[in-house]
């Protein structure tokens, strides 16, 4: 009895020591900065100065300006479109890599191929789309040479479309990875059993394969969502400043030293992300699945 309590006490002490570095790290670099941002968002901003007198001015300004609320809706719209595109492109890819490819080696090779673009820097990946999509870019040249179009398609670059194309390409692999992982864990005997019981491919996919890959879809969607919602570089480089996401607003506000406004947008962005992640986590119990 007494020896058991000492062991428990000792374990509790060890646990506390193991937790300490994480707690310190997370407090210094996550909790304190977030509290700071919330605090600063209520500061008083004048043109060249900022003072900690509490005010709702920046919050009122955000919600009364069409530019700001508009960028909130643009962010949400682009996020939803990119999420859908990465899923539509990513799921079949993952299905092929994770389930249809029987050889473990080949499926690893294919996954590595998906990751190859990440060997260059983020900005290069984004900027590489310009010579592809431009008025005199690769796609237009090829289409014109083939005689499919007479005039170059101008909506390809510096529009919302180019931002969506760029983001889908960059973030697709974050959707493919988790889904392919979940699919590769499905016991092949289960699929064989379902077929033996007379289910066709469609039924097997919707009733067995898709539900079992759902945790991967959720993890992939969380990855993509977090990154797309916080995006500013792709929209900056590929939209010609026509698409302003919340991330772009933060960058410009910080650039002109409008810390209070930047903080307001930061808080709103964080809240949106929190809601999105919480929503996704309601779909599956990840703790049970992983």
């Amino acid at each position, binding site marked *: 009895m007494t020896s058991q309590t000492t062991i428990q006490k000792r374990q509790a002490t060890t646990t506390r020591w193991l937790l300490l570095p994480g707690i310190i790290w997370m407090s210094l670099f996550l909790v304190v900065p977030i509290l700071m941002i919330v605090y600063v968002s209520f500061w008083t901003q004048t043109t060249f100065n900022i003072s900690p007198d509490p005010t709702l001015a920046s919050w009122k300004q955000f919600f009364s300006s069409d530019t700001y609320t508009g960028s909130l809706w643009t962010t949400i719209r682009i996020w939803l479109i990119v999420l859908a595109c990465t899923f539509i492109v990513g799921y079949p890819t993952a299905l092929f890599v994770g389930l249809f490819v029987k050889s473990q080696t080949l499926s690893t090779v294919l996954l590595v191929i998906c990751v190859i673009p990440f060997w260059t820097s983020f900005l290069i990946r984004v900027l590489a789309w310009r010579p592809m999509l431009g008025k005199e870019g690769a796609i237009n040249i090829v289409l014109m040479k083939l005689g499919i179009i007479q005039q170059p398609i101008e909506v390809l670059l510096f529009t919302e479309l180019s931002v969506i194309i760029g983001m889908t390409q960059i973030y697709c692999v974050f959707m493919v990875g988790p889904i392919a992982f979940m699919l590769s864990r499905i*016991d092949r*005997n*289960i699929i*064989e*059993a*379902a*077929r*033996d*019981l*007379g*289910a*066709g491919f469609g*039924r*097997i996919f919707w*009733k*067995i394969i898709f*539900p*079992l890959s759902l945790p991967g879809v959720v993890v992939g969607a969380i990855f993509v969502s977090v990154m797309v919602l916080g995006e500013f570089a792709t929209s900056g480089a590929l939209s010609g400043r026509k698409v302003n996401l919340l991330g772009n607003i933060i960058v410009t506000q910080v650039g002109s030293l409008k810390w209070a406004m930047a903080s307001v947008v930061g808080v709103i962005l964080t809240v949106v992300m929190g809601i999105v992640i919480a929503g996704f986590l309601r779909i599956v119990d990840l703790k049970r699945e992983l």
Partner: protein
Amino acid sequence: MDTSVFRLDGVTKRYGDLVALDNATLEAGANEYISFLGPSGSGKTTLLRVIAGFEAPESGRVYFNGKDITNLPAHERGIGFVFQNFALFPHLTVIQNVGFGLTHGKSGLSAAEIERRSLEMIELVGLSGMEGRGVDQISGGQRQRVALARTLTMHPKVVLLDEPLGALDANLRSRMRNELRAIRERLGVTFVHVTGSETEALAMGDRIVVLDRGRIIQVGTPDEVYGAPASPEVAHFLNRFNLFDGTLSGGTFNGVFGAVPSPQAIPSDRSVYAVRYDRMQVLPVSAKVSGPSFRARFVASEYLGSSMMNFFEAEDGHVIEMEHHLSLGAAQEFEPRQDYLLTWNPDQAIVFGREASR
């Protein structure tokens, strides 16, 4: 056979250079429990998968109810398959698993009818009250029953079971043996059971099919196979015989134990002399014996509850096993590392040899 359910005719299957099945021919009757016995790599699982339709044979035909089904896909064969690891749908409940084939196949039944049939089958395998549970919330033995019920709801004429008891612990295994037999008898369908365990094959099969390196080497009732193994390989798999190499000529077998008259021999490429573990007798070295005998050193013994296994080492390093049934009296005490004389009644031995005089 009039009541034949399925028939294999010269089925051959290769994986590259490896011959998994070599000209397998077999007939299975209706309402029969058949065990496929063989070591791993003997082709027993491949044979099962060929019957199920998961693998296509290179040559030979598979007939089911008199129809050639060699090229028919698995789900159109009316043959059920129970996987070794059960292969239950992990995200579905017990009743959803059991009803899967009826719900998602071509049964065309109403939801109410599917539920009624599923519940009936759940009751049959003894899982009433568990239909709403997730399959990860039930025990191994219960999962086994769900897998069986899932197959049985499709009313197959034949159920193939791939090492169905392999994933269960020893206690549960012997209980499920009886259960499987009882369920089969109630439904009157043919079960084909693949196993690597000779006790399981003997206990469960109405007939045993012994496989070795892709070939069917004996088919018979447990009694026939146990009492008269058709070859030294069968005797070896049964794990109940001491096997001695030697030569057979002129009705005499020459082995480490000397020359023994063996007027009757089972035809075989190898000359092997087989004595069942429980037919061995142990005597002091000084004892006089008339029959075959040889010296061996006592190594160890193993208490098995109802019997005692004694292990001896012959001069050539060969391990000889001797089983003593404790119901026949207390076990003899042996001194470790001491030599003893092993003997047996030659009438009870089984002799294999090229020279078949039967």
